[in-house]
């Protein structure tokens, strides 16, 4: 079995091409309801990819990453509301600040071992959520506390990241996902990726080879939190509203983590597969059972989580890749080029 840190370039271009085409045309045949689901799939995929950069690659479990999503959302939205700054710019500022916070948090916390780190991230998430819920002002800036931030609706303002139809939002999120995948791939196949895998595998051995553990963990954390902040801005611009309970909530954190874990942590495409599998389930369940059976989709997530940890600890990634490889072989056979053995890059 080839290891997950394949350094070779993508030999299997076919599934990528098909994937790219699907990505481009996906929203077109559908109505707004389905498009919303697609957008949510991409949103969670992107967030999970960003989460994976630190948690999957380094091997820590953060159950409070929603904080960084929320920070990104709040910063760009506040800049929009109070300073009239376009979210296209605001999101970079949000990302930068979030990134700094991520590093500040990581620095003392990375010393903690597995479960304690996880507990600390939960605690941090709760602290931020409760604080925002209960406070109207932050250094004089009106953050509206529990009421959340409402974005002004004008319908169509591309410069203000506001669009009339869902399709545009879809393509924007699709771009983010592609960027996320590229970043993941670039990290995995370069020195940073090797070092992170080494740190995850055996920190003592990694140190003996000259790898400064803290520095690399923080680099991963910085990239992860920087990227996930953009998801926050997107969320705000899409829903036109951000509230502390949702955007800083433990549920969001756990959902992001679950999607990455079930998809396959430490891989490039894992989080995407996870999102494709889980988000439609969640959305469809809320549609059909919505208010009638509260907590159903989280229950299903919990069950799937246990199932996956028990039977497929590396997530569904390997199975999906094998399936795709099988499909591709079949395809080439059908075309009469039966002897070609495509190599699926193990991402």
């Amino acid at each position: 079995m080839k290891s997950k840190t394949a350094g070779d370039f993508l030999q299997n271009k076919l599934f990528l091409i098909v994937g790219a085409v699907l990505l481009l045309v996906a929203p077109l045949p559908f109505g707004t309801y389905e498009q919303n689901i697609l957008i949510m799939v991409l949103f969670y995929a992107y967030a999970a990819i960003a989460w994976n950069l630190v948690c999957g690659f380094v091997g820590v479990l953060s159950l409070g990453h929603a904080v960084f999503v929320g920070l990104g959302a709040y910063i760009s939205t506040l800049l929009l509301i109070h300073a009239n700054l376009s979210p296209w710019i605001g999101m970079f500022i949000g990302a930068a600040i979030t990134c700094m916070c991520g590093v500040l948090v990581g620095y003392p916390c990375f010393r903690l071992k597995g479960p304690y780190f996880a507990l600390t991230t939960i605690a941090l998430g709760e602290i931020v959520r409760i604080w925002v819920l209960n406070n109207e002002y932050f250094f004089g800036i009106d953050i509206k506390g529990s009421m959340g931030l409402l974005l002004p609706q004008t319908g169509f303002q591309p410069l203000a990241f506001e669009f009339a139809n869902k399709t545009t939002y879809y393509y924007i999120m699709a771009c983010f996902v592609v960027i996320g995948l590229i970043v993941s791939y670039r990290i995995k196949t370069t020195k940073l990726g090797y070092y992170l895998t080494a740190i995850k595998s055996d920190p003592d051995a990694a140190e003996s080879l000259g790898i400064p553990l803290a520095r690399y963990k923080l680099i991963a954390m910085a990239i992860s939190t920087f990227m996930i902040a953009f998801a926050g801005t997107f969320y705000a611009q899409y829903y036109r509203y951000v509230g502390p309970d949702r955007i800083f909530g433990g549920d969001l954190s756990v959902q992001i983590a679950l999607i990455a874990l079930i998809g396959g942590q430490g891989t490039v495409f894992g989080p995407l597969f996870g999102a494709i599998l889980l988000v439609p389930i969640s959305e469809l369940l809320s549609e059909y059972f919505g208010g009638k059976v509260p907590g159903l989709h989280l229950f299903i997530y919990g069950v799937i989580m246990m199932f996956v940890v028990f039977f497929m600890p590396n997530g569904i990634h390997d199975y999906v890749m094998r399936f795709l490889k099988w499909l591709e072989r079949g395809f080439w056979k059908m075309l009469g080029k039966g002897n070609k053995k495509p190599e699926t890059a193990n991402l």
Partner: protein
Amino acid sequence: MSAIIKLENVSKHFGGLKAVQNFSGEVEYHSIVGLIGPNGAGKTTLFNMIACTFPPTSGKIYFEGKDITNFKASQMAHMGLARTFQVVKPFGDMTVIENIMVGAFLKTKNCKVAREKAEEIYEFLGMTCGRDQVAHNTTTVDRKKLEVARALATQPRLLLLDEVMAGCNPQEKLELVEVIRKMRDSGITIIIIEHDIKTIMSLCDKIFMLHRGEKLLEGTPEEVANDKRAISAYLGEDYVNA
């Protein structure tokens, strides 16, 4: 200055346990030095202090003239000091070549260069397990070699080998001895902890013997083999031949 490493009155206490007491010694460049003694004598503790896994309770350690007593473990590879672990620590999910590459990345940022270096070392050590074999699927001997390969990839000037031959059959030990000689010939100083006395005697220029944390004696293989204290503490009466 011909000593690559110098220890001055190094001691290490773990609570009430005196693991190492007042150890002093020097290792010359391009030599192979052996560290022997019964289990629990403090050999690995000494290695850990030299590699800066933890600092000594007292005393000083000099590497190439620099005081490294309180340095961090991750700094040592940069300074030219590499080590292997008594219980091997491969990066299980990576392939053999990728493991070695991690070491090679110390000296380069480039993936291709690292891979070439890794291939070079793979050849140099005469490794037989598949290049792309996942590390946790390798045999003990291959893992030992991998451990050495990875350390070698950091291009050290001093290499600490901790019981590299444990668990190897005589043929495999001979292979490793060859490898160690090759490494020394390429300019690396080696300190080796081993229990196989025959190997130590044939390989080393100088031997330190530790007993209960203290340096019992220091000398050439002949001197050690004939020393009464060494014989009674560790070697046993049958050992007179180097």
